């Protein structure tokens, strides 16, 4: 391969930016208040209450026109998207064009937000703290949609030492309406079992920001309980990451959702696809609990089809009925929890948990609906996948 002049010039330009990046300041990100503050409406008297009922402030071009529901109104369905974009997320499509996975996930979420009827949609986009490695910038952007309209947006700072997603939880609690059904979706790289070392940070521009399975679980907890008494906080939790369907992750998240949709294996940055929600809202509303499983299966099969069409690497998508799955994993805990790296140590290789003596077959009897296609090339070309869980070697 020969290097073009353009390549060389771009490398020099990038080197220049890297020099500058090393010299930048650390101004904290500023927040742009574009949303009405519901806490004022609830606690600050009539003026604030009027502000909620009145059309939103004209200073924000993003605000909808009297579409903003006063906080307190119950909404039938809520989507919470958290999309991590502070790491390497570029990839190339079949057409050879460069794509940015987090931006595509944002676009996917916007489609759902605009077309999913009367659902309320929170869209949190976690971005690099520095633009082009030089200029400090707000590193979080929340968009809130109600009734298909953008109700407002707010920039926020993911502060340097707090656990990742703590800021998102706080904003959510500030602005969320009570919701009868809730779906939580996370898009990003694999959630590490332990905090990543500084040499391998999860968030590149904020290497000290703690992020691991424990902090993720705590953050999910921070989004609060659902409306239904004695029910789990979320109907469905979607993990669009590599190795979201490990025994450790399933066990940790089972208390928070009725169903978990995840990839036990590697997941190409094409990601899982939640856009089927748009038609599901119309065809099978979540008023009946039975529809949750149906939603999960549809999102799984759509994602699987999309991934199979666009990639040659392995495709593994699984829907876990968490009560059944957690019971199965608990009964076989000695097998998987005792294995080296069982919690899914960062960067370790994984294998089908069924290969571990004593784990059992997993699969349907364990509450797992599995969609699997072996890679089109490589040593695993003819591989079968059985249990629906991967365990670290």
């Amino acid at each position: 391969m020969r290097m073009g002049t353009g390549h060389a010039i771009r490398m020099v330009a990038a080197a220049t930016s890297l020099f500058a990046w090393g010299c930048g300041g650390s101004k904290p990100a500023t927040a742009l208040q574009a949303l009405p503050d519901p806490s004022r409406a609830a606690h600050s008297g009539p003026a604030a209450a009027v502000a909620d009922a009145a059309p939103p402030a004209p200073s924000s071009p993003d605000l909808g026109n009297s579409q903003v529901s006063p906080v307190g109104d119950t909404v039938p369905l809520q989507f919470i998207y958290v999309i991590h974009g502070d790491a390497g997320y570029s990839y190339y499509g079949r057409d050879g064009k460069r794509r940015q996975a987090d931006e595509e996930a944002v676009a996917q979420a916007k489609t759902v937000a605009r077309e999913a009827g009367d659902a309320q949609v929170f869209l949190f986009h976690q971005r690099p703290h520095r633009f082009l490695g030089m200029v400090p910038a707000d590193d979080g952007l929340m968009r809130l949609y109600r009734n298909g309209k953008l109700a407002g947006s707010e920039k926020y700072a993911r502060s340097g030492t707090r656990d990742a997603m703590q800021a998102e939880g706080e904003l959510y609690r500030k602005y969320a309406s009570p919701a009868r059904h809730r779906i939580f979706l996370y898009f990003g790289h694999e959630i590490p079992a332990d905090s990543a070392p500084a040499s391998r940070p999860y968030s590149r521009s904020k290497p000290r920001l703690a992020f691991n399975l424990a902090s993720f679980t705590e953050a999910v907890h921070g989004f609060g309980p659902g409306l239904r008494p004695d029910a789990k906080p979320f109907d469905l939790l979607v993990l669009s990451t590599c190795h979201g369907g490990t025994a450790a992750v399933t066990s940790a998240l089972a208390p928070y959702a009725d169903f978990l949709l995840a990839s036990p294996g590697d997941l190409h940055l094409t990601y899982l696809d939640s856009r089927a929600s748009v038609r599901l809202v119309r065809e099978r509303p979540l008023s009946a609990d039975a529809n949750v499983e149906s939603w999960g299966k549809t999102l799984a099969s759509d994602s699987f089809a999309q991934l199979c069409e666009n990639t040659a690497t392995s495709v593994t998508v699984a829907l876990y009925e968490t009560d059944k799955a957690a019971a199965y994993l608990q009964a076989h805990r000695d097998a998987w929890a005792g294995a080296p790296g069982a919690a899914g140590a960062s960067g370790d290789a994984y294998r089908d948990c069924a290969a571990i003596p004593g784990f059992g077959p997993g699969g349907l009897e364990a509450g797992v609906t599995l969609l699997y296609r072996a890679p089109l090339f490589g040593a695993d070309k003819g591989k079968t996948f059985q249990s629906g869980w991967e365990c670290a070697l």
Partner: protein
Amino acid sequence: MHGFQRFLAICAFCAISAAAPAKASAGSGFLEERYHAALNDMVQQVRQIPDPAAKREHLEYFLTRMQHGLQKAAAETGGSPGALSQAQQADRASLTALAEKYAAYASELNGIAGFTRVPDAGLDEFAGYVRQGSEQAAIGGGVYISSGVLILILILIILLT
């Protein structure tokens, strides 16, 4: 490669080597981007070659150069394993793992070491498969070497050969 281009590349190498932090953070994003772009260039070149034998030759050249370059980079990471810091050991392990990955790709391309030979009709798809191997949502996108300089070596292997 023309002398001017080589000069620019060497300038870039020196500049980035000096600027890149010992531990990768935001700066390594650029390097990773270049790695992905280089893989994509390879895929597009393979697709544009009409003759299957020439396609295969191009792929083999790329894969073996990558394998050998990575092996050299791993060997130059430091002395004996005991003398390396934890980060250096991780770098070496990553480079070695990547070298093995490219060796397996090359073996499959040619149908050796227990692999079924990639058929002529599957060469374009195979090239895409190689690229997609680095585009997974694993930590660091499936390719992560903690030192920016080491990733740069990777890029130079691709760009300067």
